[in-house]
């Protein structure tokens, strides 16, 4: 059923800001357990694309379907309620707060303490640790500030958090752009681990080297236009580069 019933489907979506065509006739689908990579150089329309999926913008034309139903989001909150979670580049974390406090920020688990509600710190610590372990990350000290983690580990906290809070589609905005080689590999590993837990993952990147090993489907954008959508089997690294640079059109 996975291949035939996509979680999320965009059909000929365009977005205009006045007479600027930010995105034109883009179609793609996201399937549970698979990674859809969105590739493109700077200014290709990747950000607009994320903003449409995460509910920040409404598409000007075209259809946006979630689990087969047409949706139209008024705010990112509505998208989040359906399980469409976005991990932005700044990761939405407070660097001086501990890992577990960041993990549960905004959705703190509560416990009654006499007449007052207090944070269930024991549960929060345990859960944060377990959830990260499920992605293959061993944070030994869940009380250390997030700012002391490496860039890759920080990404992993953000991913684990999104997964735990019921994400079904996970949008990752350039998760490897600020990282070194080893850290990038780690993060790509977490991306695969998240997909293996039956999430649909959208990985936005401008680095074909990062996209090719983890992606199942590739959407290539150039100057707001869709160059095309490809399955992994149809692509080689060289062809990907050629497509991205816009030198040739899709056959």
């Amino acid at each position, binding site marked *: 059923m996975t291949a035939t019933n996509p979680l999320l489907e965009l059909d000929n979506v365009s977005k205009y800001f006045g007479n600027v065509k930010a995105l034109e006739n883009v179609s793609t689908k996201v399937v549970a357990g698979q990674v859809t990579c969105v590739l493109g150089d700077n200014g290709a329309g990747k950000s607009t694309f994320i903003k449409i999926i995460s509910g920040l913008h409404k598409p000007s034309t075209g259809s946006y379907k979630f689990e087969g139903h047409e949706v139209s989001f008024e705010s990112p909150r509505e998208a989040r309620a359906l399980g469409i979670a976005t991990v932005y580049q700044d990761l939405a974390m407070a660097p001086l707060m501990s890992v577990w406090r960041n993990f549960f920020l*905004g*959705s703190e688990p509560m416990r009654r303490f006499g007449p007052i509600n*207090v944070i269930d710190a024991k549960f929060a610590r345990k859960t944060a640790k377990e959830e990260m372990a499920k992605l293959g990350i061993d944070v030994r000290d869940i009380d250390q500030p997030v*700012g002391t983690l490496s860039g890759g580990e920080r990404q992993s906290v953000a991913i684990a958090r999104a997964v735990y809070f019921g994400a079904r589609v996970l949008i990752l905005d350039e998760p490897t752009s600020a990282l070194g080689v080893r850290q990038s590999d*780690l993060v790509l590993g977490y991306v695969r681990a998240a997909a293996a837990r039956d999430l649909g993952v959208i990985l936005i990147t401008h680095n074909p080297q990062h996209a090719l090993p983890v992606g199942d489907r590739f959407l290539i954008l150039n100057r707001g236009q869709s160059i095309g959508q490809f399955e992994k089997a149809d692509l080689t690294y060289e062809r990907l580069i050629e497509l991205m640079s816009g030198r040739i059109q899709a056959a």
Partner: protein
Amino acid sequence: MGDERISYRGPIKRLLVSPEIGALIGAVVVWAFFWGNGDKFGTAGSTANFLDVAAPLGIMAVVVSLLMIGGEFDLSAGVMTGASGVTIALMAKYFTEGGISLWVCIPAAFLLAGCVGWWNGFLVNRTGLPSFIVTLGSFFVIKGANLVFAKRINSKVNVADVDKAHGYSFFKALLGGENAFGDMKYRDLIFIVGGLLFAALLVLGLIEQSLVRKQSASVAELVIAIAGLGAAIAGVLILHRTDSINGNFLAGVLGLVGTVVAIVFYSRARFEGREKIVGALPDESKRFLAFGVFGVLVASFAGRLFDRNEERVMLQWMPGTLRMVVAVLAALFPLAMTIRSFARGDREVRGRVIASLIVRLPVICLVSLIGIVALLQLTTVQAVRAVVITAAGTGAAVCFYQSRRAVAKVSTKWFLTIGVLMSGSFVFVAFALRADSSAARFRGGIFTSLLLMATLILATTIVEATNRARTAPHEKADVLGRRMVLVGMILGSIALTVRLLLSDGVFRMSVFWWLFFTIVGSFVLTKTKYGNWIFAVGGNKDAARATGVPADKVKTALFIATSLMGAFVGAMILMRLNSVQAQQGDGQEFEYIIAAVVGGNLMTGGYGSVIGASLGALIMAISKNGIPAARWNQDGRFIFLGAVLLVSVLVNNYVRKKANEQR
């Protein structure tokens, strides 16, 4: 993938990364410093005095630190206390013919304050301007309003005689009441027993959290430990009863030896031993050992460098001023060497570096306090001597500690040797100081404290050398150990409270309110989701918003809380003094901010502690009260405040940068 760079943290290290620990150490050091220097300082009466001074500052520091953690400042907080006092007093006297009940005036002042706080928050959120600018505007408006209304309605800036208003007696009792309980027969005994229980539970709790349990305890060693404990208790009781010098000496030795035996054999009985390591003494260890010995010598002979009795003075060929400069430089040398080695070391994980920087902040402040006071007081022999002894002694202790740490994983024999030397040097300094001084404090209190420290150092060295330290969490033992420490702290606080309350001191309700708000503030910050939101809003506002935290509401609530607390403090001071000056609170806002910063709160937001801020206020009150008690120049305090602020900002910037760096 495990991160091998983040190792298990024992209880002491865990304690050291908490933001308030620096302020706690600072408060103890400043208190001890003035206790040793001013004869009037440290009695129950003077404690009641400085707590009364500290209370308004402490109460405000609580909310100001919350606001600061939330990433904002309120420069109108100080003048708000004046506005509240003026509002209440004017309404109570002039609102209608013959005034109006305080039951109306005080809520009205709170309402006004709430509006000011809301306005501050609204403007900051809406305009995105720095809160410094917005609240600076509010500050001047309120300051002006205070003066205008006080002069126009009351025709002078001092509004007095609120006591005629309806409801005065109730609010006086609630906000400005005095409590004197008088003496009690068993007071000292309760204090001693409570203190001993505190010390014992603290030591046992820390041991429980740091060592590896044996399968089954060894009974013979347990019996020896109990015997040691018995000797220690007997020693203390004899000390309490007898007055003869020989008797005291014997009882003291009995008590101290008993303590060491009890701690060491308890650890042997219940916890696993450690392999002996053999190795040479590393250079780092040798170097610090030399600095430590040097510091001990300086501290011991400082008394001889300056003495009214010319015959006893050493290095007589030097002019007096030069001798002082040499002594101060010599005293600072071991400290300087330690700070240099800290600055060079890069072996720590970044989180630890950040934490240790925050810990160091109050210590830096203290050094600057002592240094500046010393500069201002170079003419007072007694002051220089106190500074020299403190600096050299602290430096020596740190150097010995560094020396011992450097050898901990290399050689058991040398570890023990250095520990014993360290302990012995405390004893040496204790006797040297006692021989040199005539003050009762030095002969009694400081002498005893130094010997107690020597005992603890000896005991912990032996335990560390012979017992294996835990390297992984052990939930049961950790929980048990933490509870022991907690119970010990509660018992100790009860004993201290009994000692202070049942005395000649007059305690005001302000102290109670200070304690109350500290507990409430700390609870909100660390245990509720609102605390989490405050941290997040100050640490990364966009992140907070993205995860669904109502960031603007949190900030507005914090501004309102700050203004309301200003109104509360204003009412409190009014009830206490029965009159209010329209300029009251001007400039106080900076003291609140400094108290929060000294307490380990980051000026840039996102990190800090309410308890730390309260302790920061305590430090400031102690120095405010201690400087005149030591008959020194009071005005030097402002130089201290300025230096503290500047140093804090620098350290804060550094911490912030480090925390955001990619590794």
